[in-house]
């Protein structure tokens, strides 16, 4: 009979990989928790700078223009096609079951609740989120962030706050615009491909229309706008050295924004319906 100590010693070798595995698992679980905590603290730190907004709204307006106005053409194109695709799909799926006069209903419902906010946000994660991450990452790399800190100019106030608020403001506006464009895209297909009258289409969109859906769409848009701007800024701050670090920061910003958008989309729908 081996003594308990001997037993333990003999067990050490085969047990080591297991404990290493468990440690690894712990680290795997702890990593995201730690990162989430970091994100929450950064987010709150940015919000604490809100009072400074009233001293200089110029920075905010500049960011809204860069994020929002400059994204209009892209959002226009994708939204018209989203509407058109939705029209084709709705007709194909419901053909023979539901009359074409309800085409507008299906399009309006889907566009306002789902595709408008989600697809617009995903596209903006690529266009805006990546740009913010690359810009902030470059400022870090070129020591401009350090230079600001040294001159007692708070980077969260001058860089983070305007970008985050611009995300909260510009993205919902773009989503509203996107929904209108998608409805027009759907109308184009319904009218010219399926031969539905414009009147029937519009009546369809009004049928079952609810203000609550619009609210849900807007709530989503606000959250997604914050996610896109915030992940862009945070990944920029975390950027590693050199061109490679900046490139990776942009990539990570897009990936984590997309994941967060879809997770939040589910949570919001789950809670609000």
């Amino acid at each position, binding site marked *: 009979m081996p003594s308990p100590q001997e037993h333990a010693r003999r067990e050490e070798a085969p047990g080591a990989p297991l404990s290493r595995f468990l440690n690894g698992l712990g680290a795997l679980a702890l990593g995201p928790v730690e990162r989430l905590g970091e994100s929450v603290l950064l987010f709150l730190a940015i919000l604490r700078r809100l009072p400074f907004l009233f001293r200089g709204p110029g920075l905010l307006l500049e960011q809204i223009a860069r994020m929002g106005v400059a994204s209009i053409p892209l959002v226009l194109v994708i939204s018209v096609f989203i509407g058109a695709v939705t029209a084709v799909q709705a007709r194909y799926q419901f053909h023979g079951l539901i009359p074409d006069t309800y085409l507008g209903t299906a399009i309006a419902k889907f566009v306002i609740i789902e595709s408008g906010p989600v697809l617009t946000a995903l596209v903006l994660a690529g266009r805006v989120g990546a740009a913010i991450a690359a810009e902030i990452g470059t400022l870090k790399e070129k*020591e*401009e962030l*350090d*230079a600001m*800190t040294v*001159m007692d*100019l708070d980077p969260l106030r001058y860089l983070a706050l305007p970008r985050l608020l611009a995300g909260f403001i510009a993205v919902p506006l773009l989503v509203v615009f996107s929904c209108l464009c998608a409805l027009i895209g759907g109308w184009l297909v319904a009218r010219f491909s399926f031969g539905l009258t414009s009147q029937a289409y519009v009546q369809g969109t009004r049928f079952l229309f609810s203000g609550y859906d619009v609210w849900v769409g807007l709530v989503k848009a606000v959250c997604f706008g914050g996610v896109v701007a915030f992940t862009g800024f945070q990944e920029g701050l975390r950027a590693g050295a050199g061109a490679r670090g900046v490139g990776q920061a942009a990539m990570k910003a897009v990936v984590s924004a997309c994941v967060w958008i879809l997770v939040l989309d589910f949570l919001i729908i789950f809670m609000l319906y």
Partner: protein
Amino acid sequence: MSASPLIQLRDLRKSFPSNGKEQEVLRGVTLDVARGETLVIIGASGGGKSVILKHCIGLLKPDAGEVRVEGKVISSPDGVDAQTIRRRMGMLFQGSALFDSMNAGENIKFAVREHRPELSEAQLDALMREKLQLVHLSPDMSSKLPNELSGGMKKRLALARALALEPEILLYDEPTTGLDPVTAGVIDDLVLDMQRQLGVTSLVVTHDMPSAHKIADRIAMLHEGKIIFIGTPEALRASDLPPVRAFVRV
């Protein structure tokens, strides 16, 4: 020089993770900078000279040891806010770190406008022109963007920007690296001017030996994470420490 040193570094230690391992960059750096002097730190590239400067101004916190400015600890969380000390320090970054999105004049005025809201735009303009003159730049170039300037002009603009906040202490990170000898000489003269005309205390990091000899009251050598020599330029020339000999000869 007054009795109490303006900047005191005590047994400063700092490691950075590199390839999964901790790489100890500073292994107990102790150094005093006296009021009004120009102290030059020399040492090999990647040796941790920039890391020392960043500790002096609170951009990095040491793993162990202490940084004091005017006797006040700025390195620990319960020490005085690094912010209050920073107002009196200026730093010239290795790559100038100018704000690329702003023109030269805005680079100078931006921080001043924030910290001295009582100044009118006309007063800010006057201040900007005065600082540009101090570094021998023409006020006409104030509308240029940083990427339209040469390396030497960028360094001078960065110095003008730091001077705009009227610092008592200036930290220079390799001010002459990458410049031709003539331009480097102009920058050296400016470093000397700042000390003589404005009475600022300077801590300069460099591996440019001619420049070090020209501007330094004292030279310190950083080698393998420690200060292995500190003394006058003459003493440095006379030193027979092997790392010093090797460095001074190249």
